[in-house]
């Protein structure tokens, strides 16, 4: 059982995501982006290449500068989202990535580089990102705190 957050947890999610063909249809499909994820003090880079989420790695915060966009929330908010997904099989109406981004004054998605063209990848691939986190419903998760 992988601990959240950790590289192992993201690898478990990747395995589910990469082996479910339904994630490539219905508005999913080829995706090419480097997603940064900041969960409290922990930073991760998740790589999407075509039909595959090809890598997940825990990194230093400064490494997030390379990300096209960074999803950042406090640990408690991430935990709330992951638990919601686990409970419902996918994010409910109040816990989708876009809802969290617009519903929070501080937003969810931002970048270190400020290039809106790259930040817009969060919108261009939003369904894929949603599928990715929804895939965590099939991952056994142990929370760090």
């Amino acid at each position, binding site marked *: 059982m992988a601990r959240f957050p950790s590289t192992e947890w993201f690898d478990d999610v990747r395995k589910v995501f990469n082996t479910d063909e339904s994630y490539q249809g*219905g*508005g999913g*499909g080829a995706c090419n982006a480097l997603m940064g994820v900041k969960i409290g003090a922990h930073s991760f880079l998740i790589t999407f290449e075509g*039909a595959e989420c090809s890598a997940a790695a825990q990194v230093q915060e400064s490494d997030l500068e390379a990300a096209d966009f960074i999803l950042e929330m406090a640990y408690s908010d991430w935990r709330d989202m992951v638990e919601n997904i686990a409970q419902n099989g996918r994010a409910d*109406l109040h816990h989708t990535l*876009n809802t969290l981004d617009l519903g929070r004054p501080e937003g969810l998605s931002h970048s270190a580089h*400020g290039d809106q063209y790259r930040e817009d990848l969060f919108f261009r*691939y*939003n369904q894929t990102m949603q599928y990715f986190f929804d895939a965590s419903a099939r991952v056994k998760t142990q929370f760090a705190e």
Partner: protein
Amino acid sequence: MSEAKLPHTESHATAGAGLDLGWMSRQGEWGTRAVAGKQGLTLADIQIGSYGEPDEKSDNQTGRPRGAVARANSYRIGGYTVMSKSEIWLDNASFLYEEALQRQWSSATDVPWHTIKPLPDDIEEAQCQLATFFTEVEFVAGDVPARWIASTTPDFFEPRQCLLAQVMDESRHMDVFRKRALANGGGLMQTSGGTAGVVGSIDLARDFTEMSSRLHISGEGAVLTMFRMGELMAYNEAEKAMYRLCAQDEARHVAFGVMHMRYMSETAPQRREEIQCYLDEAERQILAGSQNPAGTQTDSSEALAILLGGGKAKYDEGVRKLIAIRRRQVQEYIKRVRSTGFGDRFDNGRSSLVDTFDHHVAA
């Protein structure tokens, strides 16, 4: 275009059968072997050798594929008005087109329509008013690229392919919003009329960059934010899916506009002032006008406020949230324009966008 010469062989000399075979000696660069990568055989993979980037100017008036050998007696079909690369090019058109192909969806089967349940009357009316508006807006973005496709030489087929994908996307958007309006006890409501006839509107552009600045950067950028808000204020999974999928498509169209503008910024300094004028006009007409439902109070902005607030009785709360949307919209537009290389307009006082936005906030 250089023609590859076929080495003379016995088999050709004795071809018989009344075959001429002269065409075999008149083919383009030979020996091309594009290799499929991890994402299949993409347009980028075949941009090799003389089949790669087009020349700055096209002389193709017969519609032949770029790199094909011209015939002296081939019929001209052209009359293309876009014959210069600098008028339409963007560096990642192939990539955006392949992405569009891969990320298509069906409004009939990828939206969980069965999750829509009856809503309070004011909410349903607001959703239907918004759906009516979006159906009307998407019509603009379906028609206008189509006209430009027919006017552009096929030597610049990569941007044309993107525009063809956009026409398909917009058709799907027209369809999905009509479906939403008619799926839950409502119906179509009143049109905005805001997509017709105003001087400087998207329809009236006589230059591709002019059109793209208004359509892709300004118009679709604003609608992208609206779609994201639609996902936020959705009352069911169907609306969530509908708005999210539309937003993805819209973001791709915006990306086209940004990359084209960026190309113009880098390669056509002589057009800089001209493009700034397009942005001046677009900002006045689109972001602050009636075409923007989150602009001055319109039927659609009132509908948005009702949806955001959670009903007619919470209208004021909805308006406050709507203002926050406008802020977000403006911020993203500014950052996109900066990304294109035309951001100096916000630093030197040229853009009145921020003033316009503050004026409406205070009203």
